[in-house]
């Protein structure tokens, strides 16, 4: 039993990171129909640039915040330079385009940081043992910060006028333009939000999973699977999808074979796309953002 709980706790903290990445996919896709395959790179850039800042003597929390800022700027630049100029964006075009951006970003990271992986120092606090289950302080930080971020994102979309304007663009793009909401401005805000979310995932995961030039690849794909579980348009679905994926991976690695861990996401993706392409959690039409 305590084994099981141990796997679940480890799975939840890994899943929280997927949930953050998944929310980024949803933020962009729901507003602009773009599937951003560079979402994982946002996390890698955040981890690596936070490492650069701490190397330069910047205190850890400040370095993390600066990394968020760097990634938000990268995300907005990406939207402006690579996405906005495309006249007729379709989801397929967006996949090819963002795959290119993702590859270019990875190459750039390899040039700057080299191939070795490094971990950011963990956030302060002592590890706990509750009922035979050991919980690392960093895992508690991950769960806590993810919870706060998820609530903040939900409040942003449900309560603020800007968040509602983004939902309006997602639901009725023509009507949104007619009331004066610019789809390009909306897409820029969506990319900034997605950049911030990916960056939070990157700085939180770095102490546990290490960050290197290509660590965005697997993280991005798993975030995508998590977002797909929620139908790609639901923030709540993305959070739930991330947590479920994390726990399933952890249980598979624990009870079956740790070699199968990374296969879980893709088996799940195939099952979902065949059985429930609209997402597992919630009804498609109601679930938008």
């Amino acid at each position, binding site marked *: 039993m305590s084994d099981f709980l141990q796997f679940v706790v480890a799975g939840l903290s890994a899943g929280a990171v997927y949930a953050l990445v998944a929310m980024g996919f949803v933020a962009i896709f729901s507003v602009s129909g773009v599937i951003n395959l560079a979402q994982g790179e946002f996390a890698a850039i955040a981890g690596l640039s936070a490492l650069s800042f701490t190397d330069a003597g910047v205190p850890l929390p400040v370095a993390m915040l600066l990394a968020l800022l760097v990634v938000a700027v990268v995300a907005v630049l990406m939207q402006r330079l690579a996405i906005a100029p495309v006249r007729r964006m379709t989801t397929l075009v967006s996949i090819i385009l963002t795959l290119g951006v993702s590859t270019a970003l990875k190459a750039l990271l390899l040039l700057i940081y080299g191939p070795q992986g490094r971990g950011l120092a963990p956030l302060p606090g002592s590890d706990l043992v509750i009922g035979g289950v050991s919980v690392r302080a960093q895992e508690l930080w991950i769960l806590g910060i993810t919870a706060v971020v998820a609530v903040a994102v939900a409040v942003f979309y449900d309560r603020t006028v800007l968040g509602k304007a983004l939902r309006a663009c997602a*639901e009725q793009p023509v*009507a949104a333009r*007619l*009331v*004066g909401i610019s789809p390009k401005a909306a897409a820029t805000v969506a990319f900034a939000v997605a950049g911030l979310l990916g960056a939070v995932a990157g700085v939180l995961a770095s102490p546990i999973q290490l960050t290197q030039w290509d660590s965005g690849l697997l993280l991005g794909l798993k975030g995508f699977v998590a977002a797909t579980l929620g139908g790609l348009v639901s923030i709540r679905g993305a959070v739930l999808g991330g947590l479920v994926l994390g726990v399933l991976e952890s249980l598979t690695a624990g009870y079956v074979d740790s070699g199968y861990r990374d296969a879980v996401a893709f088996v799940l993706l195939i099952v979902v796309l065949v059985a429930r392409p609209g997402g597992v959690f919630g009804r498609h039409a109601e679930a938008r953002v």
Partner: protein
Amino acid sequence: MSAEQGVEAVDLQAGYGRIEVLRGISVAAAPGEVVAVVGANGAGKSTLLRALSGLIAPTAGRVRLGGADVTGRGPEAIAAAGLAHVPENRLVFPTLTVDDNLTLGAWTRRRDKAGLRERRERVLEYFPRLADRLAQAAGTLSGGEQQMLSIGRGLMARPSVLVLDEPSLGLAPRVVREIFATLGRLRTEEGLAIVLVEQNVRAAFKVADRATVLDRGRVLLEGVPKDLLGDDRVQQAYLGGGYAVS
């Protein structure tokens, strides 16, 4: 006839890709005037409104709004310049509440919080049915209420020009009467210039001051509804069948 302060299309041409839909249309609505635009399917009614509001760029001709030339500007700019386009099929924001739909209608004036509240009161006066539904998701409203919300959303920006695309579509005659009566009030009380595209010719002609009949991208007839109703071509084309007189 002059639309110095209203909206005016001069010799407007527009279409989709290589398909030319408007082949030189001139229509104008002055403040305090309802102009009905009628015509068969494919005559170019909706395309005319899309060209007025900037959803599609005209290939030739001019669009003037409040005396200023807005030809070729995007819908966001034209909305900010005072034209509200109430689109076909209402297109309310379905998961947002009625109240949020109205708030977003004032997007171009979102910094004026006091004006927003006042405007909302005014819109709810015109459409009291919406007042009971403010907290409800717009997608759960009846068709008539969604149409009222779509018009109300347009009014939130304090437009000087209101253009409507088939507001009567799919609605019961009683609801159509209610909505068209409100359009009449908006003309007189707000001094709006209103362009009303309709298939329901009888209902549109009741409220309209002037009317334009489109045919395959050109203006076929223009005049006062009363005279047009007597015209054989209009009779045959639009009023010949078993239209319910509303």
